[in-house]
């Protein structure tokens, strides 16, 4: 069995430490957000980790006003799909940006987000 490129657990440990990590296919060069066992482009099973800079722009965003039970006390809050400079996209929670100044194309920068239950997740703050 080959070692997984990066486990979800290891990915979020890196997030906690302030680092966003992608995986690059050593066969065709495709960049992806883990975990993926096979390259969706060429089918190879040969990933290596590649740290991302964390800079990107908002591709789309929303302000959640009716939240799921676990997040009820946090609304309103914004979520955005961020197109990272390296070419992959990821969903994150917007932090420290006034909701009314959100816009498609707004430059943002990765911020680790640690929830009250200590779970790490992806955040984006001002560039």
């Amino acid at each position, binding site marked *: 069995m080959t070692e997984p490129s990066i486990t*979800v657990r290891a990915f*979020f440990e890196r997030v906690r430490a302030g680092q966003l990590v992608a995986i690059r296919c050593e066969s065709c060069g495709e960049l*992806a*957000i883990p975990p993926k066992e096979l390259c969706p482009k060429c089918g190879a099973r040969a990933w290596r980790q590649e740290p991302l800079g964390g800079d990107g722009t908002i*591709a*789309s*965003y*929303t*302000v*959640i*006003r*009716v*939240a*799921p*039970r*676990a*997040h*009820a006390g*946090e*609304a309103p*809050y914004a*979520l955005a*799909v*961020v197109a990272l400079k390296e070419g*992959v*996209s*990821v*969903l*994150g*929670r917007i932090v420290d940006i006034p909701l009314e100044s959100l816009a*498609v194309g707004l430059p943002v920068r990765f911020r680790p987000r640690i*929830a009250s239950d200590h*779970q790490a*997740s*992806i955040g984006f703050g001002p560039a």
Partner: protein
Amino acid sequence: MRRVAVIGVGVTKFGLHDRTSAELFAEAGADALADAGIPASAVQALYYGNVVGGETEHQLHTGPQAASVLGIPSVPTTRFETACASSHAAFRHAVMEIAAGVSDVVMVGGAERVLNVSTAESTEYFAYASDAVWEQPLGLTFPGVFALIARAHMQKYGTTEAQMAAVAVKNHKHGALNPKAQFQKQITIEQVLKSAYVADPLKLFDCCPFSDGGAALVLASEEVARRHRKPVWVLASAAASDWMLLGDKRDLSRVPATERAAAAAYRQAGLGPHDVDVVELHDCFTIAEIVATEGLGLFEAGAGGRAAEEGRTSLGGEIPVNPSGGLKAKGHPIGATGAAQIAEIVTQLRGEAGPRQVDGARKGLTHTLGGNTATVLVSLFGRD
């Protein structure tokens, strides 16, 4: 492969019920058998859709449970879960069982009960259909998923909140003609635009409701179907999937799974979008209807909002969409939705839809989307 027909349909009223999902399915199932004019003993298998039974009713193993409550405990049952597309996925597999010659009569059903829990609770359970590691911890909701799609569509094509509101107004107008619909009253553009934001830019009246309800279909091989009144033929049934994570979807203004499932269904049937007379599609949010009309090829990419605003998708328009009222007004008991959409198209093609009848409808299409756009089913139907 053998031809397959729908020979019986049954749908409960959608809305608040003080009954279990299995009871709701059983009512629809018995109605479908009566509609088909065949005894329960003729049913050889049950394909069943149910999504959050484990959460809202503490009920798993819902296939045999539903079959037991209907009174057909000994047939093989399988429960399908593809989020909101569950009973359409069940339908596709039932079609394949008959087409392959394994069975001659198969029931497809689905039911859901969610109005017995709070909105915050059901919002959480529905969000389980997004990714538990990458998306749920961020507080993503289903209105949130479609809000992200809406924003991308507005940015790319200039789609407006008023165009989305036009979808809600149209579907409520249709729903007012459907005695089984959860909402049977008309609304105005102003009411939609003034309703509170749920997930910007989507407002309360852009969203379908939480609903309880059940639906069932009786499917039969050609040989059996020929002995029954007005069989409606299954011309195609296709499924497609897409990346689970929103971040992995390259263009949020589109639903590639809709485009792929539609292409496969049109190919199977040897038809194109302009051969279709009536459509029941997945309008869980108003933007979802706009994007679906584009993905199904009814309108060019980016033209769906304008088409809705111009009345081209209304009853009496060039291609009526959601004459039942759609998920928006008829309601959306998620496990039942796919089967209920098919029941509406069968009713339309039989010419039995009363005041919401699409005149002369001969070919119909159903489109059901699961969760975060990662599952789509498209089926095509025709009458003799």
